[in-house]
C-alpha cells in the first residue's frame, strides 16, 4: 500500500546533489509531492525535505540508495505521525470580492491565517498548516476571486531524540577505523 513519507536527507553542499536524488526517484517512478532545501543546524550541512508517496518497502530501498551517494551524510524516513511538519501558503485575492459582506475577518480568524498586505486591488493572505487545511482555505476563498495561490514544500522536524550531530560523531569514529588499510590498497 502506498502511503506518504517524509524523507529528511542531510548532505554536503556538493553541486548536483538534488540531481542525484531525483535520478534515484525517477528510476523508481516515484513522484516528488513536495521538496524543500535549506541549511541544517549543523554548519555546512544541507537539508533536503522530500515528501513522496510510495510503499514502505520501496521507500526503504530508495533511502538506502540515497544514503549510498558519496556526498549524502544521513537519510531519515518518517511517516507523518513521527514528525512535526508545516507548509506555508500565500493567497492573492481581489479586495473588492473579499470586502463585500465583511467575510474577511471571519475567514482569516477561523483558519488561523493572517493578512500580510492590503491594496485597493488585492489582499495577500498567509496561512501555515498542513496541506489539507491550506486547501480548505483555498476553497473558501475561491468564490471571492483568487488571483494567485502558492504553497511551499514541507518543512519537518523529527520527534526522535538522537540528533544529526551524534550520528555525525559516530560516523566519524567508524570512519577513522583503518586508514592504513587504504594506504596498503593504494600501494599494491
Amino acid at each position, binding site marked *: 500500500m502506498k502511503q506518504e513519507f517524509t524523507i529528511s536527507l542531510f*548532505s*554536503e553542499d*556538493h*553541486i*548536483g546533489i538534488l*540531481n*542525484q536524488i531525483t*535520478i534515484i526517484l525517477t*528510476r523508481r517512478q516515484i513522484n516528488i509531492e513536495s521538496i524543500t532545501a535549506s541549511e541544517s543546524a549543523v554548519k555546512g550541512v544541507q537539508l533536503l525535505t522530500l515528501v513522496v508517496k510510495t510503499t514502505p518497502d520501496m521507500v*526503504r*530501498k530508495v533511502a*538506502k*540508495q540515497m*544514503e*549510498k551517494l*558519496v*556526498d*549524502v*551524510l544521513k537519510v531519515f524516513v518518517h511517516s507523518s505521525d513521527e514528525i512535526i511538519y508545516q507548509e506555508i501558503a500565500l493567497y492573492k485575492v481581489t479586495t473588492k470580492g473579499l470586502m463585500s459582506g465583511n467575510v474577511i475577518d471571519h475567514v482569516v480568524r477561523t483558519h488561523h491565517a493572517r493578512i500580510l498586505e492590503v491594496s485597493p486591488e488585492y489582499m495577500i493572505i498567509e496561512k501555515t498548516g498542513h496541506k489539507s487545511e491550506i486547501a480548505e482555505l483555498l476553497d473558501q476563498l475561491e468564490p471571492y476571486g483568487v488571483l494567485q495561490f502558492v504553497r511551499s514544500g514541507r518543512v519537518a522536524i523529527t520527534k526522535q531524540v538522537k540528533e544529526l550531530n551524534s550520528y*555525525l560523531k559516530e*560516523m*566519524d569514529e*567508524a*570512519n*577513522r*577505523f*583503518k*586508514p592504513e*588499510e*587504504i*594506504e596498503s*590498497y*593504494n*600501494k*599494491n
Partner: protein
Amino acid sequence: MNTDLETDMKKEKATNNEPTLNGSEQVTGADALLRSLIEEGVDTIFGYPGGAIMPVYDKLLDYEDKLKHILTRHEQGAAHAAQAYAMVSGKPGICFATSGPGATNLITGIANAYLDSIPMVFITAQVVSTLIGTDAFQETDILGVSMPVTKWNCQVKKAQDIPDIIAKAFYIATTGRPGPVLIDITKDAQNEKLSFKYKKCTYLRSYNPHIPLHTKAIESAAIMINHAERPLILAGHGVLISGAEKELREFAEKTGIPVAVTLLGISSFPSGHRLYAGFLGMHGNYGPNLLTNEADLIIAIGMRFDDRVTGNLKKYARQARIIHIEIDEAEINKNVQVDLEIHNDAKEVLSHLIPLVGKKTYESWVREFRICDKTEFDKVIKSETKPDSGDIKMGEVINLVSELTGGDAVIVTDVGQNQMAAARYFRFTNPNSLVTSGGMGTMGFGLPASIGAKIGNPGRQVVAFIGDGGFQMTIQELGTILHYRIPVKIIILNNGYLGMVRQWQDMFFKKRYASTELVNPDFVTIAAGYKIPGIKVLERAELKKSLIELLKSDGPYLLDIKIDKEGNVLPMIEPGASVSEVTLNYKS
C-alpha cells in the same frame, strides 16, 4: 616516432625543471594533474586528445618516464581498455578524453564500469569556465550526462583545487564498493598556476567505506551454517574485489559447502575443485541453478542477485534461508529478501567467520551436484566440446584453448554466445582471469579490453574470444594493437550471425531472423592491414594446429574461426522461468 634530436631536447627539458614532486613550486594545473596521478601510483593512462585537453597532453611529454599514455582509436576503446587494466592489475584504471564528443564517447565505458564496480578515474576536459553554460563549441554537460553512471563526479574550475579533488577521486573510486569517478577540468584550470602540494585523501565525512564488524551477525551466521543440511555458497565479484579467494577456499573446504559462482565471480574459486558447483545464471551450469531451489541455506558473498542469476524472483530459493554478505547496503534486500544480512567486506567477514564454523562434509548433497554435472555433460557439454562431425562448435574451441593453456590465461570475452561459451567451457585456475562485461553486456568490449588486460598484466597470456558482430563494434582498436605491438591473441568465433539474438529469435520468435545475419568482411585481410598475422580456420582438422600457432606467436595474432552457424547456448533459464526450470534440450 621521435627523432633522436627531439628525444634529446626532451631529456634536457625534463632535467631542467626536474620536478621535486611534492615541493611547493608554481606549476600549471595540467602539471598538477599529472603529478597527482604519479602520487597515486599511476603509470599507465588510456586516452584520446582534443582541443580542450591539449594543455594536459602537452605536459604528458614532460612525464614520459613516469606516465605511459596509450592512444586508443576511440574513447570507448580507452574506457574499456582502462577497465580491463584495472580488473587484472588491481590498480584503478585511468582514462583521458577531451570535452564534448570525447567525453560523450566515454559514456558506454563508464556505465560498463559502474555496473561492474570497477575502480576507475576518468578525466575529461571542459571548455574554459567563462563559456560553460553557453553551448560553446564542444561543450557538453558531462557532469549531468555521467551522473547516473558514476560513483561520484565533480568539475574543477580552479587549478588550486586539482590536487585535492584528484585525491578524493582516487579515494572514492578504490574504496568501499569500487566504481568509476569522473573529474571534469576546465581548460583555464589546466593552464592556471598553483603551488603544488599533494596529500592523499583518507577520510570523507559523508562517505564511510569502513564498516564496523557486526560480530553478533557473524556469530548468527556461524550457527545457521553449522546447522545447515544442504548449504550452498554463491560467490560473486565481491570476492575478487576484496581479494578473498583464499578465505573463500578455506571457508568452503572447512565447512564442505559447494561453491557456485556468478559470471563476474568466475575465477574466484578454482573450477577444478571438488567443491566447485559451477557457474550460475541464464546460461550457467545445470547443477547450481537447479539446486539453488533445493538448498536449505544460501550464503551469498559479494554478489547482488542480478536478474540473470535469479531468474523468476517469485520462484527463487523460497525454501532456503539466505545469508547475504555484501559491502553495499543498498544491495541487501533489494531483489531478494534475506534472513541475515552482514553488511561488510567479504574478506573481513570470511576471516572472522572461518574460526566459528565447524568442520563438516556433505557427501550426498555434493553428489547431487555431480549427478547434475553428468546430466549436463551427456546432454550438452559432450556434443558442444567434443563433436565428432559437423561444423566447429564454440565450446570445442574454448575447451581446446583451456587444455592448451592449462587453464592459465587471462580470458577476455565480448558479449553474446561467445561470452557464454567462454564462461562455461574455460577451466579457470587463477583468480582475476576473466575479463568480461557483466552488468551491461556491452558488445565491443572484448577487443579494447584485451589491450588493457595485456598492458595490466604483461606476464600472462591474454586470449580474447570475440563474436563476428561485436568485433566490428570496436574493430578500430586493431590500430592500437599495431601502434604498440600488443601481443594479444584474438579469436573470432565467426558464426555469421548476431548469434545470441538469433538464438532468441529461434527460441522465442518463431525463427524469424530479423536483421541478425551478417555480411562480414575478410577479417584476416583486415588484420593484415594492421600488420597482425592471422589464419582463417574452416575445418576441424586445422583447429588445434592453428590454436597452437596463435598461442606460441610472440606478437599479436588473429584467428577467424568458422563456427556452426545456428548453434544455441544451452542450458538456458528462459525469460520468466525459475532457476529450477533450467532447460537442457531445445529442439527447434
